[in-house]
Every structure is written in structure tokens, then in C-alpha cells.
């Protein structure tokens, strides 16, 4: 594939596995990544009904360490990392001074003075640079291990049963949004109970050199359970059903956390100053100018990113993510609309090519796992 030989496209340590599994590979955020193996619908169902194995080695792993690591992150991010107990994680964002979202993140507290920040591949370098800059005045250092760290996720109702016998981490004691250091298939790993699918599951951070063996062991161990390798295509439909925002689609620098319905992530009550505080306080007080809503298309057609949304003849917003929902069997979408047009039950129109197709505002998420 073009770009691999000259190094302009980054590759994961699992590339040869993906090729052997017959994956279709695409350039995603500068990485050669599997978009699908057997097919998006089949892979999507595997995760909902059984389990799926994902290579997410393109994500950015940024370790922040030092006596002021927590305080440094409290200044750099909109959440309050010092409030995390060791072994816990939360969803966060890094914003610009104007309150625009520069990336959405997961922050894990590994020790009193050690945190792991996981950034999207498309923003990993930007976030790394911004963190280095913002923590400059604190007794904390940034260790960007994105290129040395592989990330393998196992997600789905059978993920726990497949992983538990292959790790020394007490899986039953590891709660949702918990993280523990241990071993998986003999390799040192960080085991987190997080994911981007709407299912129970785990994310496993290992050194690149150990990724192949870990992948092989889990894929073999899961064979009898129906574990399937899953590409970025199904990852997108899974997260959309779970109404988890995708940076670059639903979130971007023109969007504030309040616009995205994620105001709860911003901790205005924390004592520390942080980048974006003044702007975010103002937006919180004035109310957001738009609202992220869920839509189910009630006519013929699929709402896609960028399609306009209308109330009668008035354009009220646009679709940011849209796809046919494999689980619901109808086209679903996330869209920004004028706040008053976003109440569940409201009927809107999506502009699809030359026509208008009715769509209903529905409560989010589209899909919530049982139990």
C-alpha cells in the first residue's frame, strides 16, 4: 500500500495479522487500519451478541507524571482529574480558550502522581503538544508513548468470560471505568474496563512488542465463543448506536461541551483555573446555541454527515453522524439543531440529495444494553 514503504503512513504492530485475516485496510488519521474483515454488519452483530476484538493502536497514549500531575491536568483539561481515585477513569475534553473542543479524551489515574490520557489518533500530536505546553509551569512531565503502545479492545457480552482466564487482574473487582496494572496472556498490560461500543468490555494497553502475542491468544481463546475481529467500520456504527460522540464528526473546535450535551464533563466547581474556563462559564450561563440530538429517519433514505435539517422551510441544523443502525434496523443520526427544535418527538426533515425525508427526534442513546 502506498505510503507504508516511505513511512508516511503509520502502521500498527498487528498489521500482518490484519492482512492474514483478510481485512480491508484504509488510511485513517495517518494510520493504515482495518476498516472491516468479514463485513460491517456481521462484525457489529458479533459485538452486540458475542464479542469483538479491535486493534486501536492508532490512539494516543499520553502519560503525565509528577507531584503536580493532577493539578497540571486540572489546568489543561475541563474535567477534574485530581478528584479521580487511583484505578479510576473519566471522560474528559481539552478545550481552547474560547471553549471549543480540541479533543475528547479518557483520563485514567494509575497512581497518586501518574495519569494516562488517551487521545484520538487524529488529534494525538496536537493534544501531546498542548499538554506539554499547558503543564509547563507544573512539577509534571509528559511521556508521549503513542508510537510505542498498542491498544487492543475486547468488547461484547462474552468479553469478560474470554479475558478473565487470561489475566491476573481481578476482572470481577474491576468496575466500569476502572483500570488495573497486571498481565494479559503473559504480557504486562494496563487493563481498563472502558470502551466505545455500548457493551461491557475492556481496553488493553501493551508495549508494541507484546501486541501480536496478546492478539493471537485472545483471538484463539475467543474462537469457541464467537469472538470476531472488528474493524473501524463497525466501531463507528457501534458507537453511534450508543450515542457516543466522534471527534471530527460530532465534535470539533466550533463546538463547546454544552452544545454537545456534554456539559456535565466540565467541572466549573473545581477550584483550579483551567484553559477555557471564562468562555465555558459564559456559555453555561447563557445556554448553548445549538443542541446535539438523536434522529430516526422515518422515510426512505439514510441521513449522512453534512446533510441539512429543516423545520418546514427553515434550516435548523445539520447531521453530524448518520448510518443505518444494524441493531434497530432503521437509519439513525446525530445532528445539531436550534435548541428549541430538539425536543424528543419533534418531526424534522432531512435534506437527502434533492428531497426531504422525515425524521423524528428521539431520546439518546439509540441503544442501551440490557442489565
Amino acid at each position, binding site marked *: 500500500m502506498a505510503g507504508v514503504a516511505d513511512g508516511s503512513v503509520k502502521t500498527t504492530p498487528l498489521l500482518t495479522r490484519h492482512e492474514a485475516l483478510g481485512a480491508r485496510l484504509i488510511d485513517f488519521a495517518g494510520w493504515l487500519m482495518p*476498516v472491516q474483515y468479514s463485513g460491517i*454488519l456481521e462484525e457489529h452483530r458479533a459485538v452486540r451478541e458475542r464479542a469483538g476484538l479491535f486493534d486501536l493502536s492508532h490512539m494516543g497514549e499520553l502519560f503525565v507524571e509528577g507531584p503536580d500531575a493532577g493539578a497540571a491536568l486540572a489546568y489543561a483539561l475541563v474535567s477534574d482529574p485530581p478528584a479521580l481515585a487511583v484505578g479510576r477513569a473519566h471522560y474528559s475534553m481539552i478545550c481552547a480558550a474560547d471553549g471549543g473542543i480540541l479533543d475528547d479524551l479518557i483520563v485514567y489515574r494509575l497512581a497518586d502522581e501518574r495519569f494516562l490520557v488517551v487521545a484520538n489518533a487524529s488529534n494525538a500530536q496536537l493534544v501531546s503538544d498542548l499538554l506539554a505546553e499547558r503543564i509547563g509551569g507544573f512539577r509534571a512531565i509528559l511521556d508521549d508513548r503513542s508510537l510505542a503502545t498498542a491498544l487492543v479492545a475486547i468488547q461484547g457480552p462474552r468479553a469478560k468470560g474470554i479475558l478473565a482466564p487470561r489475566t491476573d487482574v481481578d476482572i470481577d473487582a474491576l468496575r466500569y471505568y476502572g483500570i488495573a496494572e497486571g498481565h494479559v496472556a503473559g504480557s504486562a498490560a494496563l487493563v481498563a474496563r472502558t470502551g466505545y461500543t455500548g457493551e461491557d468490555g475492556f481496553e488493553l494497553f501493551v508495549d508494541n512488542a507484546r501486541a501480536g502475542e496478546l492478539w493471537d491468544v485472545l483471538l484463539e481463546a475467543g474462537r469457541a465463543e464467537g469472538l470476531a475481529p472488528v474493524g473501524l*467500520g463497525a466501531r463507528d456504527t457501534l458507537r453511534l448506536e450508543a450515542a457516543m460522540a466522534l471527534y471530527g464528526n460530532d465534535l470539533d473546535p466550533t463546538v463547546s461541551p454544552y452544545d454537545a450535551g456534554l456539559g456535565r464533563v466540565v467541572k466549573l466547581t473545581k477550584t483550579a483555573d483551567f484553559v477555557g474556563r471564562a468562555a465555558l462559564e459564559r456559555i453555561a450561563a447563557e445556554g448553548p446555541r445549538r443542541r446535539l440530538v438523536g434522529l430516526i429517519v422515518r422515510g426512505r433514505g*439514510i441521513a449522512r454527515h453534512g446533510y441539512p435539517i429543516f423545520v418546514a422551510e427553515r434550516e435548523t441544523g445539520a447531521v453530524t453522524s448518520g*448510518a*443505518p443502525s444494524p441493531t434497530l434496523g432503521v437509519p439513525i443520526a446525530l445532528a445539531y439543531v436550534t435548541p428549541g427544535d430538539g425536543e424528543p418527538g419533534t418531526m424534522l426533515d432531512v435534506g437527502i*440529495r434533492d428531497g426531504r425525508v422525515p425524521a423524528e427526534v428521539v431520546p439518546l442513546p439509540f441503544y442501551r444494553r440490557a442489565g
Partner: protein
Amino acid sequence: MVPTDLHYTKDHEWVRLDGDQATIGITAYAAEQLGDIVFVELPETGRTLAQSAAFGVVESVKAVSDLFAPVSGSVVETNAALAEQPELVNSEPYGAGWMVRVSVADPTEIDALLDPAAYGALIAEG
């Protein structure tokens, strides 16, 4: 394998000529490249298609692709089964997954299409 009794476009449509009527679909290669097909939008019966102009849309889970008319003519029938079973385009691209049937306006347009060997060579290039 590329069926030897059809004509092809570089945009991966196929044409089966039967008298003055042409049945049109997309090739197995195109269907495979698109992935799971979930939606097909076809023109109304009676509409006139112009060669090389977009006449419909095929959508997979991730992608939206235009369909281009291999020949000019008026639509005499569309494959209604695709409304409920768009996956037929994946499973039987040259059979039950056909899309439209047109009354051919100008038979000489067929001569400008790719023959099976030329189309086979096109997809072999990737």
C-alpha cells in the same frame, strides 16, 4: 469472475442487452468494494436516462455511491425487491440484484462500453 455475456462501464455497472431492452446493475467487484449494501434509490418508471448521467444511488453502511447510466433510454421497470432486500446486490449482483431495465434509445452507445476482457483487466489493476 466477470460474466462474458455482459457489457460494462468503467464505473462498474453492467448491461445485459435483450432485444431493444437493457438490464442494468452493478458488478460483483463494485458490490464487494462497497461492502454491505443497505439502500438503493432508483428512478421512477418512465424517466429518461442519459448515458453517463447519475440515475440513482447505492449505499453501504459507510458509503454513498452514484449509479451512472451505461446507456440512454427510458426506464421500463425497476427492481422493486431491492427496497426490502438491498443485500441482493451483494449476494446476486448479476441476477436478483439487478437495478433497472431501460428501453435503449441508441444501440450504438453499447459499442462504447467495455467488453468482459477489458473490464476484467480494469478491475485487475485494482
